[in-house]
């Protein structure tokens, strides 16, 4: 405090506006350094003409919102090592959302790396991206699967997919008036203009700006929702009809099969750890995936039991972190370990 007091005294001869600017700039600089070194990396997202955005290759990622990660993306922009074929040449291509992207845990603790470790000579290429769901995977695999020569494609699914199915606006797998399923690809247009370019530049160069911009965006969205609810009313919750969902999954599965590679689904559920005993948080969604698997005879790896068993044995949840809500959100290292071991066993059976 004495140092600050002395500096304050030394600046006392300058005009107040200059003094204030000096203090503000010094504070911002210190905060920028602190965030950059330990808590948040500048944005590594760039515009993508198909998917809206993608992560830059070889980008340094530090995130501390939920769990903690320091990692560097590979040459394709994914949070994984460079693809290196194993001696046996058995290769699994993993597509999924933020659960598989696993930004919350150390790269070595992610379930696909655990599965590689416990599985014999199986290489898993992780191309998961947060926010994606099945239509994204279908479109992406159609364009990129052949590049990786996979022996098996592993599609990670979870409870949120059904909600995105009914509410998602970008990539949609929809039925037209003739009841035929078709993909709607939005092809976003890159914003232009100096304010967009300045914002992008700031986000690519400043951790503080990236952090503040993301938070401000969340705050504004929440405020907009809140005020809308107050003045327009609360909208009816969108119901995802289970029968529609099964049909939706079935039609998508038929498209996945056209890739000519065996398809395996990996269902990672949310768990209600506060119930005694613990149980799946979204039982309807869980049943839907089971129904889909039995009706369509697809290969579904259901991680529900391993997560429940892990909790029963250790008493500690496989989701949540000490800097977020324990038991909620994404999987922690314990959850990844349970799912990774389970996956290794399953893959060994399928890729002997």
């Amino acid at each position: 405090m004495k140092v600050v007091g002395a500096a304050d005294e030394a600046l006392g001869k300058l005009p107040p506006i200059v003094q204030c600017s000096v203090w503000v700039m010094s504070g911002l600089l210190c905060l920028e350094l602190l965030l950059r070194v330990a808590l948040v990396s500048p944005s590594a997202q760039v515009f993508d003409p198909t998917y809206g955005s993608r992560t830059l290759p070889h980008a340094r990622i530090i995130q501390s919102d939920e769990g903690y990660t320091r990692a560097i993306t590979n040459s394709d922009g994914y949070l994984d090592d460079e693809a290196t074929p194993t001696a046996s040449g058995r290769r699994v291509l993993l597509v999924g959302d933020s659960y598989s992207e696993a930004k919350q845990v150390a790269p070595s603790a992610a379930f696909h790396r655990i599965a590689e470790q416990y599985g014999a000579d199986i290489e898993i290429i992780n191309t998961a991206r947060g926010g994606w769901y099945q239509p994204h995977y279908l479109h992406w695999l159609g364009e990129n699967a052949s590049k990786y020569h996979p022996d098996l494609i592993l599609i990670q699914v979870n409870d949120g997919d059904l909600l995105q199915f009914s509410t998602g606006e970008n990539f949609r797998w929809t039925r037209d008036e003739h009841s035929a399923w078709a993909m709607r690809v939005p092809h976003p247009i890159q914003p232009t203009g100096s304010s967009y370019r300045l914002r992008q530049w700031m986000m690519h160069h400043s951790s503080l700006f990236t952090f503040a911009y993301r938070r401000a965006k969340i705050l504004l969205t929440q405020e907009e929702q809140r005020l809308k609810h107050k003045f327009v009313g609360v909208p009816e919750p969108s119901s995802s009809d289970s029968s529609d969902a099964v049909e939706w999954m079935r039609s998508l599965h038929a498209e996945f099969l056209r890739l000519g590679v065996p398809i395996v689904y990996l269902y990672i559920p949310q768990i209600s750890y506060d119930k005694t005993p613990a149980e799946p948080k979204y039982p309807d969604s869980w049943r839907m995936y089971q129904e889909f698997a039995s009706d369509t005879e697809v290969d579904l790896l259901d991680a529900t039991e391993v997560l429940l068993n892990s909790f029963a044995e250790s008493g500690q949840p496989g989701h949540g972190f000490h800097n977020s809500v324990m038991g909620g959100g994404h999987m922690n290292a314990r959850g990844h370990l349970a799912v990774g071991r389970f996956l290794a066993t399953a893959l060994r059976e399928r890729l002997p």
Partner: protein
Amino acid sequence: MIFSSTEFFLFFACIIGALALTSRESVRRNVLLVGSYVFYGWWDWRFCFLILFSTVLDYIVAGNIHASSSPRKRKLLLLCSMVANLGLLAVFKYANFILGSLEPLSGVIGFHPPHLSIVLPIGISFYTFQTMSYTIDVYRGSLRPARSFRDFALFVAFFPQLVAGPIVRGSDFIPQLEREHPLVPENIRKGLAQFTVGFVKKILFADTLAVFVDPVFATPEVYSSMTCWLALVAYAGQIYYDFSGYSEMAIGAGRILGYELPTNFRHPYNSLSITEFWRRWHISLSGWLRDYLYVPLGGNRKGPVRTYANLLTTMLLGGAWHGAAWNFVAWGAMHGVGLAVHKFWTAKLRPDSLSRFDLWSRPLSWALTFLFTLFTWVFFRAANFSVAWAYFGRLFHPNAAGIQWYYVQVLTVLTIGAGIHIAVAARGDRDLRLDFSEPMHVALAMGMILMILLYAPFGSNPFIYFQF
């Protein structure tokens, strides 16, 4: 409308703008009165009529009490006001509680009372106590009635303290209406600083602690003993920062408008006894209970037994004031017993007999007081008695296994909070002051706003005391 919402900032800016446009005091008061009703009606406009009813009633009754020389008539008018005000509380706040509590008895004769669908009007406990204190003060002759209905209505509905206090008495506020209240830069500067401190307490401290406290208190049986202990300390912090944050925002907003509102908190967790705790915690309520309930019951003037009984009665009702549930009554009863035991202790054990404990007496007193306060918070926070017992079961279970959750943000907030309390105690109970230049203060305020943007848990969390 809550102080930490966007619409409040827009509303407050409009009020300040309107006040700045006029130099006439009557227009300023009209603006404040209309603004106060808009502020209250923003939640549910229909309840504006309730506050208006309470205002009209007490204005007329107090005026007639003042004008009347007949003791009988004066007493009757006072009784009329009490019955009406407490009746409002009974209907809107306690009806279902009373009916539900009677059910075990009425069930014997086959009568099952219905559950009434009554919405609890926000702030009813606060403004009812304000209007009652005004009428009682006029009756006692310690306060002259307000000069005009507009002034009295402004006293009741003054928006900075309308929904969650501090409970302002007529003797605090009405004399202030004798002078003019133009916008003064010095008031705006000091008020803004105090409002910012309260805002930080609410948004950065209380709301962060709530993220941790709410799930643990919802299902304590699944969490480990240590996590339950941490959540209990976190709740002690949450309720303090939530309520004292609101109070500071109210006092700051009042000061910006040129009005002084009474202090409501003075670092209560530094207390060395439960009696001291109530001199530091929710001061406006404890003062109200003392002057309008404890003292009229006889206070400490009728012997030790009556004193203890009066303390217990006062705190039982004080507990019930907080909420229409038996756990609040139990919380109040425990504080009543605590106060009585402390009074007995200090009366029987003379200070000089404590000399051999000097080295330890202060830390021991602090620890006992803090632990007592912590344990009573379990009843205050738990949804019902069964949750409270389950919570105690986790706290005192020697090997309570369960989910271990040591929320980093909570540990950070509690460390900062404890540091501030220790620093205040080290400065002889004086608030911390940063003797920096004006530009440095502006920079610090901007830094605070940035920290709120970066680290506050978003989502509009209503203030805890709104439900009372």
